[in-house]
């Protein structure tokens, strides 16, 4: 009965490869996010989708492409991976129809290591 689940948990790959991370939430939330947490634990928002519509697209390289097939899913595809992409990527969801009051529910994270 995991609320926000993302796969894989660990991802080790070489520079130049393309990889995807998947996220699913069963909370019925209307908004999903991708956050990147660097080695110093700093959390930065990357993307946000509300009802499958992209509403936040921070200054992220266009090698990163999110896709939301429906409200419950938000995947992240990364092309041409670089060393600097190594980080923990967190998926999160919230109910934004509450007007910003809804806290974020996070997945367990995907630790991406690019060698």
């Amino acid at each position, binding site marked *: 009965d995991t609320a926000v689940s993302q796969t894989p948990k660990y991802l080790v790959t070489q520079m130049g490869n393309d990889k995807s991370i998947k996220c699913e939430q069963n909370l019925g939330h209307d908004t999903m996010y991708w956050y990147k947490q660097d080695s110093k634990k*700093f*959390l930065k928002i990357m993307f946000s989708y509300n009802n499958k519509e992209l*509403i936040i697209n921070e200054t992220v390289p266009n090698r990163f492409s999110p896709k939301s097939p429906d409200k419950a899913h938000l995947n992240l595809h990364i092309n041409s991976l670089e060393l600097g992409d190594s980080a923990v990527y967190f998926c999160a969801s919230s109910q934004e129809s509450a007007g910003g009051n809804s806290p974020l529910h996070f997945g367990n994270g995907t630790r991406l290591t690019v060698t």
Partner: protein
Amino acid sequence: AQSVSQHNHHVILSEAASLELGCNYSYGGTVNLFWYVQYPGQHLQLLLKYFSGDPLVKGIKGFEAEFIKSKFSFNLRKPSVQWSDTAEYFCAVTHTGGFKTIFGAGTRLFVKA
């Protein structure tokens, strides 16, 4: 632009000591404020939140936070910490109607047994 500042990057306390972690935000409008905790190797979990009403909010595990509007602050407190409180603590803010949660840089708390 909105920003969140956490003053203490690393805090080391002994068990039973009192804790206060500072958080200041910059945004002139109505805000929603949160504290999240990340235990080692885990994801972030909500500790407590403030939207309106009583500026002193109580969360899980004996934590509380006080919203002081005039100081743009939302400090986290706990009267007596335990070893199991060792974690990273993040202050966060959204503005009412917004979709974007801004996080502070986090404070790493280590509690000595």
